[in-house]
C-alpha cells in the first residue's frame, strides 16, 4: 500500500471536513478569477468605447478639416512665392511683384518634397494701360493650378486638382473684374482687344471690393505676350496647409530647398485663425478622450481597490478556516498519529500526510475555483452587449495564480498544525489509554 492510498481513504472517510476546506478554497479562487475577468471585461469594454469615441472624433475632425479646406479655398490663397530679390516696398507700392520667376519653377516646386503647400497657381500680374480703352487695369495671366504630386489625395486621375481655387481660362478668353465690365459695358462673349491681343469675354466677376474688380485675367501665355515676358511669371500663389503656427517656418525651408532664388510671402492674417481654430478643435478632441480615459481609470481603480480588499480577505478567511480544520483534524487523529508513529512512521511522514491532504485540497479547490470563476465571469460578461468570449476575458497569469494560490494557501495554512502533528509525542498519546 502507498501513502497516497492512506491519504485518499482518510479524505473519503472524513469528507465533510475536506469539503468544507475545499469549498473555502474554491470560493476564494473563484472570486479571484471572476474579479480578474470583471476587470478585464471592464478594460475591454472601456477600450472599445474609447476606440469608438476616438473613431467618431476622428471622423468629425476629418469633416472639420474638409470644411476648413473648403473655407480656405473659398477665401483664396494665403501664400505668395516671389523672387528672392523682390523689394517688398515696391511690391506694396505697385500692387504686384516687379521681379520674375520661370514658369517651370512652379513645376519644380510641384515635383519637389513640398508638404506644406497646396493649390500652386503660377501667375504673371502687372498693372498696365489698356491702350485701346485708355484705362489702367491689372493684367493677370494664369494657366491653371499646378498639381502637387506629393499629395495624390487632391488629384484626379489626370493629375489635375479635384477642386481648383481658380478655374482655367480657355485660350483666347478673358475674365473681367466688375468695375471694368461696368465701366466699359462689357458682358460675356463680347469681343475685346487688349494691347493688340484679340480676346472674348469669358466671365464677368461679381463686385469684390478688391483689386479683382480692376483685373483682367487671361491665359498665361497671352499675358506673357502682352507684357513681353515669355516663359516668365512673377509669383506663385499657394494655399498653405500647415495648421500649427509654430511650424510656419517649415514652408520657408521647403520652398528654399527647391527654389533657392525664391522667397515666401504669407498672408498671416488668414493663417493664424485657421491654425487657432484647428488647435482648439484638437484640444477639444483631446479633452473628450482624456475625460473618458480618466473616467475609465477611476472606475478601474475602484474595482481594483475592491478586489484588493476582497481577495486577500477571502484568502485569509480560507487560510484561517483550513488552519482550524487541520488543527481540529490533528486533535481528532491523535491516537491515529500515535499508532502510526508506533508502527514506524517518521515525523516527516506524519507531516507529509497532513500537508499532502491540504495540498490535494488546494489543487482540487484551485481547479474547481478556476472553473467556477470562469463560469461566473463568463455568465457575468459573456452576455454583455460586447459579448466577450472566454479567451478575451482570460488572463493566463490570473489562471496560473488561481491554480497556484489555493494549493500554496492550503499548504501554508496546514503547516503549523501539521508540524504540531509531527511533533506529537506518541508515548504521551498511547499512555493516555
Amino acid at each position, binding site marked *: 500500500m502507498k501513502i497516497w492510498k492512506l491519504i485518499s481513504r482518510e479524505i473519503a472517510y472524513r469528507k465533510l471536513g475536506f469539503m468544507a476546506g475545499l469549498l473555502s478554497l474554491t470560493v476564494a479562487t473563484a472570486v479571484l478569477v471572476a474579479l480578474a475577468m470583471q476587470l478585464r471585461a471592464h478594460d475591454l469594454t472601456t477600450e472599445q468605447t474609447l476606440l469608438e469615441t476616438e473613431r467618431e472624433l476622428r471622423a468629425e475632425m476629418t469633416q472639420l478639416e474638409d470644411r476648413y479646406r473648403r473655407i480656405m479655398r473659398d477665401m483664396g490663397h494665403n501664400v505668395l512665392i516671389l523672387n528672392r530679390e523682390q523689394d517688398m516696398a515696391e511690391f506694396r507700392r505697385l500692387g504686384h511683384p516687379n521681379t520674375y520667376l520661370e514658369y517651370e519653377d512652379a513645376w519644380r516646386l510641384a515635383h519637389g518634397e513640398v508638404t506644406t503647400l497646396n493649390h500652386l497657381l503660377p501667375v504673371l500680374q502687372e498693372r498696365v494701360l489698356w491702350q485701346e480703352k485708355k484705362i489702367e487695369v491689372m493684367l493677370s495671366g494664369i494657366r491653371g493650378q499646378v498639381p502637387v504630386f506629393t499629395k495624390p489625395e487632391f488629384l484626379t486621375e489626370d493629375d489635375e486638382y479635384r477642386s481648383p481655387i481658380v478655374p482655367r481660362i480657355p485660350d483666347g478668353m478673358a475674365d473681367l473684374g466688375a468695375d471694368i465690365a461696368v465701366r466699359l459695358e462689357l458682358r460675356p462673349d463680347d469681343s475685346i482687344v487688349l494691347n493688340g491681343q484679340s480676346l472674348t469675354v469669358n466671365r464677368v466677376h461679381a463686385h469684390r471690393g478688391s483689386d479683382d474688380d480692376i483685373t483682367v485675367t487671361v491665359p498665361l501665355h497671352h499675358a506673357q505676350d502682352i507684357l513681353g515676358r515669355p516663359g516668365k511669371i512673377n509669383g506663385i500663389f499657394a494655399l498653405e496647409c500647415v495648421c500649427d503656427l509654430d511650424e510656419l517656418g517649415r514652408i520657408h525651408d521647403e520652398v528654399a530647398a527647391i527654389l533657392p532664388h525664391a522667397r515666401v510671402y504669407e498672408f498671416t492674417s488668414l493663417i493664424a485663425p485657421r491654425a487657432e481654430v484647428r488647435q482648439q478643435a484638437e484640444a477639444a478632441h483631446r479633452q473628450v478622450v482624456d475625460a473618458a480615459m480618466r473616467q475609465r481609470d477611476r472606475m478601474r481603480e475602484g474595482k481594483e481597490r475592491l478586489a484588493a480588499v476582497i481577495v486577500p480577505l477571502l484568502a485569509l478567511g480560507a487560510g484561517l478556516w483550513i488552519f482550524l480544520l487541520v488543527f481540529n483534524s490533528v486533535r481528532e487523529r491523535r491516537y491515529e498519529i500515535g499508532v502510526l508513529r508506533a508502527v*514506524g512512521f517518521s515525523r516527516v511522514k506524519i507531516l507529509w500526510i497532513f500537508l499532502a491532504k491540504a495540498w490535494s485540497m488546494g489543487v482540487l479547490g484551485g481547479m474547481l475555483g478556476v472553473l467556477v470563476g470562469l463560469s461566473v465571469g463568463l455568465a457575468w460578461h459573456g452576455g454583455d452587449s460586447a459579448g466577450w468570449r472566454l479567451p478575451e476575458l482570460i488572463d493566463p497569469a490570473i489562471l496560473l495564480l488561481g491554480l497556484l494560490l489555493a494549493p500554496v494557501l492550503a499548504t501554508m495554512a496546514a503547516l503549523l498544525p501539521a508540524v504540531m502533528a509531527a511533533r506529537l509525542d506518541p508515548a504521551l498519546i498511547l*499512555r493516555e489509554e
Partner: protein
Amino acid sequence: MILTIDRLNKTFIANGGRVAALADVSLRVGRGEVVAINGRSGCGKTTLLLTAGGLLPPDTGTASLDGSDLYALSHDERAVERARNIGFVFQQFHLLPYLNVLENVLVPTIAGSAGGRDERADTRQRALALLRRFDLLERVGHRPAQLSTGEKQRVALVRALINRPKFLFADEPTGNLDDDNAAEVMHYITDFAAGGGGVLLVSHDRRTAMHADQSYQMEQGRLLE
C-alpha cells in the same frame, strides 16, 4: 537475549510532584520467550512497554533490541527500527477507521520501506496469508466498525506482525476481550514467540501470566519477581 533492559529510570512531573514511573527496572527477554508484567493501573507497566519499545526515552538506563541500543539512535532511525523489528498491540486496537482490514494490516509496510511493485505484491500475499491464519480472510474488505472486538484485536495483531518483527510489545492485549477471545489472542502471541520472536506484554489481567514463560509484578515503577 533479544531485548535487554538495563536499569531504566523514568520520572514524570504530576500535580506539582515527581512520580517515578520506572525505578531501576532491568529485564531480559530471550528469543521464543513471552514475558508478562502484571500490575495495577498506574504502576508503570505502559511506561515500561513504551520505553522498551523505543517510543519513550528513559531518564537513565538503556533498552537494547538484538544488541542495538534504541536510544543511541536518532528519532528517524528509531522509527525505522520500530517499523522493521518491533510490533505493537494495544488494548484499544487503534485500527484506522477509514481502512479495511487488509489495508489496516498493510499500514506498517508504508513506514517500513517505499517498496517496489513486486515487494508490495509480496507483502500483500503475506498479509493475506496471515489473515487466513488468524481466521480473518472473510473480513479483508470490512472496516473496523464492522468487526467484533475479538476480530479487531486479531487484526491489530496481524498488523503488528506484518513486517515480520523480532519483538512484539503488547499493552493489555486481552483487556477488552472475553475469555474465549482472550485465549485465542494469547494463543497467537505465544505462537509468534514459538516462531523465534520475543514478547513483552503488560496487563492487569492475570490470565496472561498463564501463557508467559516469565511473569513479573510491577508496583510503583519497580519490577518484582
